[in-house]
């Protein structure tokens, strides 16, 4: 009716109860006095008048309460009472409260953190308007297709052939000119490790080359200055400009607005800063990390020159063979993807035929369109599988936490059955009791939710941190996702409410008299027993899954850690150099490396120096077509082997044994006959039963070189720990006529990185002041970093496994304890009739064993079924590894029986007389 007066009076009643009480008291006292005076006036004695007045008005306290209630304070008052009661209950059984809140917090916290990471790596979209309109052009071709030379992401198709998102620049230009299916096509390419010189200090940056319509098509406007325009992307050299990222602006220029117009040296080419990207914009390639600088394609031949293979020019813009540019566009509204792809397919075929010579009627690539809203999404590729497995495990933990909570609440409800009956008998309404229980459950759930939030917030960056390597920045910074927290919180709270309320509902339906007498309530007892047992079996099965998972992943880590490397990683310090191509085109970097090689070897404390073009166990490897002497080139292509350009002392520095022949020496020069050392696998595969030394092979496809084998070395792992050594040859780097674009120096030394770093920097700068020293780390750290996913898995699953064991322990203990206490009478009778305590103990343990075995059996079945999912993440053992399964089952059975031991002992210690009197 009158909302305002209702609210104001309600508020006064709730917020200022004392003031209201005083007011009522004063009113009532005035009433009493007036009444008494009137009575006295009519001749009643003073004493009698007051007595009468008081009797008629009733007690002041009751009046106060009723008046307050009239102002609507009852609900709040009762809530307050309930809350106080709930807190008292929690304080009375702090163990229960801690476990319930703790398991909720873990379930919520773990899942929030995992989902946040997953969301970020797998689902984040580019920070541009309408990302859902973006399409990334891609193509697929069968084996032996027209595209031979590729720089960028590709995926091997199962039947041979490949899919890729890279195009040659001339093909892109033609596509863009003739495009009608999309708004406009723009191109980009990310470059790792470019050199920027700022204030005389060189440092490595990441860059994105973009087309002139990139900013306008993405609809991104720099927060400062302007974006790259068509006029910047004209003929080669026409746009010496860069747009920098918000991060780079903050890091290098402290967000100074005067940065616009400043000239920086990008790969020693002067370029003008014309804009700063908006915060959050990460370019078109990835939604996780932004390149530091963006510059137009027109600058590629000058600022980022690259000579590929036989090409005489260092411009990629005219190279018709190399496919390297990513092409994206916004699809026109109403145009289906298939129509767009079909129209591009025609264009692509024409463009390929127009720009390159298609040999031997090789099939030309067929166009596809891919969702471009997440860019190329490089993070998703490698992480999708491990993250989904982690999410699955997180889900199991949440389930386990909920089951545990349910179990605890059920146990407690049955323990409080008598209390319910007393309250009902004393006249409490059923709704009132339910409200009380609901308050308790909600209080627990909210505490759990709040702790979960704290936990999730506290460790929200844990996943990105453990996902990045020791020497680099975090893989990404996770944003806290409230929706996910809400999801996990709602699930746990609903669990708490259901399992908190269902027993209360049950309890209030019970006949007061019968439950007060504690006559065996067979019906509710069986239900509790059944529900409780089911939950415990589910808990044990979930625990079994998690323990098996922990076993599998921990063993994978151990196996990897102890796998035979084939080289000695100890006391090796690595750093990298990437001399800019502008200054060291092609083989011009070889003299630089040779000079550094010598100077580093002279540094005191460094025992030997070995250069490699690809660091070992870095996930990267180089491959070449390999044709041993006596074999012919085949039109469909020959097999390829791995290779690495290495320094003279590579084998001794890395401790790779020479099995036959010799290593490299001063006699092998840039101009002498090209030589190589092959590993045993290669010798075995390509020269079975022969002595490979002195034989030659042809390497490379377009411009093959003939190389003589001078030695055979032991097998050593190359790109991945998980891969057994493959056929590999090692060639002296100074014989590589294309030069080495990026080199890793391995230093054998007992000094640590910190001590040596200044000296190393000095040495490098004494050769070239503008050369940054990159990624200093030890070979052991490099290997550890490559085991990062395995370590994450082992760590998380081990934690989950321990948690699962604890929860299973609590679960089975609580149900066994409950059963023993319910059966005290029965046990007493049995013992009175002559059962020995061992028999009673056996009886209890048998029951526990039965539940444990059921749970373990269900868990084993589940683990076998789910094993296939994780098989590809394992190393050195099968997903059904019998030892792991047996050990996990044994562990779980021991823990469960151990937990049941205490209730079993208690049962065995029952005194028949007291048990019977207990009735």
């Amino acid at each position: 009716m009158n909302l305002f007066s209702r609210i104001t009076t309600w508020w006064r009643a709730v917020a200022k109860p004392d003031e209201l009480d005083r007011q009522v008291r004063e009113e009532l006292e005035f009433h009493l006095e007036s009444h008494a005076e009137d009575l006295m006036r009519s001749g009643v004695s003073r004493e009698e008048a007051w007595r009468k007045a008081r009797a008629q008005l009733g007690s002041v306290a009751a009046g106060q309460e009723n008046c307050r209630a009239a102002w609507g304070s009852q609900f709040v008052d009762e809530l307050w009472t309930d809350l106080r009661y709930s807190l008292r209950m929690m304080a009375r059984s702090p163990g229960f409260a801690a476990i319930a809140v703790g398991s909720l917090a873990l379930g919520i916290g773990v899942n929030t953190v995992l989902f946040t990471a997953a969301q970020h790596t797998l689902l984040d979209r580019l920070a541009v308007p309408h990302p859902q309109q973006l399409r990334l052009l891609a193509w697929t071709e069968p084996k032996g297709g027209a595209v031979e030379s590729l720089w960028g992401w590709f995926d091997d198709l199962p039947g041979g052939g490949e899919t890729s998102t890279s195009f040659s620049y001339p093909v892109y230009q033609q596509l863009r000119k003739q495009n009608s299916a999309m708004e406009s096509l723009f191109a980009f390419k990310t470059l790792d490790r470019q050199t920027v010189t700022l204030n005389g200090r060189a440092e490595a940056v990441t860059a994105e080359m973009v087309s002139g319509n990139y900013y306008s098509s993405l609809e991104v406007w720099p927060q400062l200055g302007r974006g790259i325009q068509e006029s910047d992307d004209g003929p080669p050299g026409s746009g010496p400009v860069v747009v920098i990222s918000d991060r780079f602006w903050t890091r290098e220029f402290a967000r100074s607005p005067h940065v616009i117009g400043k000239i920086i040296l990008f790969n020693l080419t002067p370029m003008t800063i014309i804009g700063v990207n908006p915060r959050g914009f990460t370019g078109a390639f990835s939604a996780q990390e932004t390149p530091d600088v963006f510059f137009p394609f027109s600058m590629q031949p000058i600022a980022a020159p690259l000579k590929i293979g036989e090409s005489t020019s260092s411009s990629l813009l005219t190279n018709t063979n190399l496919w390297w540019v990513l092409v994206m566009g916004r699809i026109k509204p109403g145009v289906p993807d298939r129509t767009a792809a079909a129209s591009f397919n025609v264009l692509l075929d024409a463009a390929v035929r127009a720009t390159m010579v298609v040999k031997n009627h090789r099939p030309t690539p067929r166009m596809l369109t891919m969702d471009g809203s997440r860019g190329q999404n490089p993070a998703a590729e490698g992480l999708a599988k491990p993250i989904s497995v982690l999410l699955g495990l997180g889900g199991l933990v949440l389930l386990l936490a909920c089951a545990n909570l349910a179990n605890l609440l059920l146990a407690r409800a049955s323990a409080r059955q008598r209390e319910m009956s007393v309250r009902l008998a004393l006249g409490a309404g059923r709704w009132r009791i339910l409200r009380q229980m609901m308050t308790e459950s909600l209080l627990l759930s909210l505490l759990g939710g709040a702790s979960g939030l704290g936990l999730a917030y506290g460790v929200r960056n844990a996943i990105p941190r453990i996902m990045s390597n020791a020497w680099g920045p975090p893989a990404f910074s996770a944003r806290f996702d409230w929706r996910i927290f809400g999801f996990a919180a709602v699930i746990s709270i609903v669990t708490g409410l259901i399992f908190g309320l269902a027993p209360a509902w049950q309890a209030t339906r019970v006949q007061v008299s019968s439950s007060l007498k504690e006559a065996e309530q067979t019906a509710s007892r069986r239900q509790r027993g059944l529900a409780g047992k089911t939950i415990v079996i589910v808990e044990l099965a979930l625990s079994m899954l998690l323990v098996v998972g922990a076993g599998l992943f921990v063993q994978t880590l151990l196996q990897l850690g102890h796998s035979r490397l084939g080289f000695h990683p100890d006391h090796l310090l690595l750093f990298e150099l990437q001399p800019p191509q502008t200054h060291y085109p092609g083989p011009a970097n070889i003299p630089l490396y040779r000079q550094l090689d010598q100077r580093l070897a002279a540094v005191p404390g460094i025992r030997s120096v070995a250069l490699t073009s690809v660091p070992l166990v870095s996930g990267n490897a180089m491959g070449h077509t390999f044709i041993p002497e006596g074999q012919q080139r085949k039109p469909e292509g020959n097999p390829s082997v791995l290779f690495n350009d290495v320094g003279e002392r590579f084998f001794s520095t890395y401790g790779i044994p020479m099995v036959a022949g010799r290593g490299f020496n001063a006699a092998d020069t840039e101009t002498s006959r090209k030589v190589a050392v092959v590993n045993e696998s290669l010798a075995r595969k390509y020269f079975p039963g022969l002595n490979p030394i002195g034989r030659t092979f042809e390497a490379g496809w377009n411009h093959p070189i003939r190389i003589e084998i001078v030695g055979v070395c032991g097998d050593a792992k190359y790109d991945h720990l998980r891969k057994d050594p493959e056929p590999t040859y090692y060639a002296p780097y100074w014989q590589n006529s294309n030069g080495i674009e990026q080199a890793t120096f391995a230093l054998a030394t007992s000094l640590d990185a910190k001590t040596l770093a200044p000296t190393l920097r000095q040495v490098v700068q004494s050769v070239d002041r503008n050369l940054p020293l990159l990624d200093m780390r030890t070979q052991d750290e490099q290997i550890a970093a490559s085991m990062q996913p395995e370590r994450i898995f082992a760590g998380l699953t081990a934690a989950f496994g321990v948690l699962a064991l604890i929860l299973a322990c609590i679960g089975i203990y609580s149900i066994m304890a409950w059963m023993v206490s319910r059966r005290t009478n029965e046990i007493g009778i049995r013992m009175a009739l002559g059962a020995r305590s061992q028999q009673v103990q056996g009886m209890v343990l048998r029951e526990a064993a039965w539940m444990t075995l059921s749970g373990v059996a269900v868990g084993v079945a589940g683990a076998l079924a789910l094993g296939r999912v994780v098989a590809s993440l394992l190393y050195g053992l099968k997903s059904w590894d019998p030892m792991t399964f047996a050990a996990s089952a044994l562990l779980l059975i021991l823990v469960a029986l151990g937990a049941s031991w205490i209730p079993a002992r208690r049962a065995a210690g029952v005194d028949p007389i007291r048990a019977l009197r207990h009735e």
Partner: protein
Amino acid sequence: MAKDTGVDLLQGTLDMLVLKAVSLGPLHGYGVLLRIQQISQNRLEIQQGSLYPALYRLEHEGWIAGEWGQSENNRRARYYRLTAAGRRRLEVETKKWNQFADVIGAILNTVPEQL
């Protein structure tokens, strides 16, 4: 909250009587009691204990407003007056009560000849 259905007759009636008493001029709680007794010529027995909760209930609904004032014997007392909403309420209640009383009266006064 007065019940329109009239199931809880006494409570509904007390609220109505209080509204009526206050409509004749601002009164303190004791005054309300006296006035009802006076108008009813002491034929109605009012439970004094339920008078004040009724007053607070009516104030909660916004039908009467209470404020402190000076009593006839120079004492501080809380005076209640009818609000605009209260006046409308009283009219509605009065009309309803009259209809109710008519119907019940007609039924109870029925004699066999009328059927």
